[in-house]
């Protein structure tokens, strides 16, 4: 009955793998041995209570924060061993990040915010703005192109931030609660656009959300609890029972 694209099989190669990540802030252990794999083109939801370490995980996977312990591998390269320059380059060319809080440049319009990564990559202003406009359209915020972040609603800013994360055609998008400020229908529009884009270009997505209806757009879900990740299928006994009864 499912009309989804076939899910990547377990054998398909891992784009990002993290093993035994630990990260403390003072006496707070945000990550306590988190491991996960994100496969090529896979949409993976990360759920979990607030304060469980989801954002910290995203920061470690995207090379923004260095874990205290553990290894993050991207396309065969260990992020921890890369020189700062190469890491910055990866972040610009291969990663798109949507942060949970404040991320757009307040002085720039929505259009210029989205065009910025293209300008940084050396594209000329005209084509960059043209492409930026198309991405705003996709996420239903073309009408806000000339507004600055302070003049937009939380939900509009989130959509602009998603457009900015995707504009460079990254191989992986990290999105931290990208629908947190949206109502159900607006969230649905954003998720449909995000999933469509990801499928079309085989972009992998790490989607942090506490909303099960949003997580249901992903291929798979893992749950963060006290700095450790689990997948529901770890509890195999219950799974088999559910299948027998179903």
């Amino acid at each position, binding site marked *: 009955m*499912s009309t989804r694209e076939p899910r990547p099989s377990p054998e398909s190669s891992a784009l990002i793998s993290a093993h035994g990540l630990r990260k403390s802030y003072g006496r707070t252990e945000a990550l306590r041995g988190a491991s996960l794999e994100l496969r090529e083109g896979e949409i993976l939801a990360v759920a979990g209570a607030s304060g469980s370490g989801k954002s910290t995980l995203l920061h470690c996977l995207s090379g923004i924060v260095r874990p205290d312990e553990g290894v993050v591998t991207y396309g065969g390269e260990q992020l921890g061993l890369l020189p700062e320059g190469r890491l910055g380059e990866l972040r610009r060319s291969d990663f798109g990040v949507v942060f949970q809080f404040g991320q757009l440049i307040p002085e720039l319009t929505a259009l210029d915010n989205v065009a910025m990564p293209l300008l940084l990559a050396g594209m000329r202003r005209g084509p960059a703005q043209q492409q930026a406009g198309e991405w705003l359209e996709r996420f239903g915020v073309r009408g806000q192109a000339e507004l600055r972040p302070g003049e937009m609603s939380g939900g509009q800013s989130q959509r602009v931030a998603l457009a900015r994360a995707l504009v460079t055609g990254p191989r992986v998008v990290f999105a931290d609660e990208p629908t947190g400020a949206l109502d159900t229908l607006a969230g649905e529009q954003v998720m449909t656009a995000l999933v469509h884009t990801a499928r079309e270009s085989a972009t992998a997505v790490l989607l942090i959300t506490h909303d099960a209806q949003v997580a*249901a757009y992903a291929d798979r879900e893992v749950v963060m609890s006290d700095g450790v990740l689990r997948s529901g299928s770890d509890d195999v006994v219950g799974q088999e029972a*559910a299948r027998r009864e179903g």
Partner: protein
Amino acid sequence: MSTRHVLLGLLAAGPCHGYDLKRQYDARFPQARPLAYGQVYTTLQRLVRDGLAAVDGTDSDGGPERTLYRSTDEGSRELALWTDQITAPAPFVTNEIFAKVVVSILVAAAGAPTGPDGRKPDAAAHLRAQRAAHMERMRELTALKTAPGADLSTVLSADYALAHLDADVRWMTTTTARIDTLTAEVNAA
């Protein structure tokens, strides 16, 4: 769901025979159990008996003869009464998941080893596995409603099922957190 009112509603569009009513019903309520032919015909006979529907001749279409039914004025009034009436929120919401979790906690608290391999019931593990099963179903429903060309009744019924599964998942999340707190308290004592 009140099958008789739904059938009356379908008849509001014009005379129809039982087979077509069944088909329309299954298409409008894709998440519901398909309606059995037997049930369609018993319901139609009762509607006729109660004066809410009437036989409107037959149509054969080259094949076997089929009885056509139509709604009566009385039927339209009955239908309006039904659609206008606010449905009472269920006074008790209970289901199997809830019962299993409560019993698991009770059995664990009683300290009795159970299960064929002597495993103790583990409410938290059960909730994680149940969440995974719910999420799997929610992914299917999401795929269904976002498929190109999904019609409105598919979208609405998928939305309805998703909202209810989502409510279950929320309850499971809260319960998992409560069990963690409880366990931490027991272990600290």
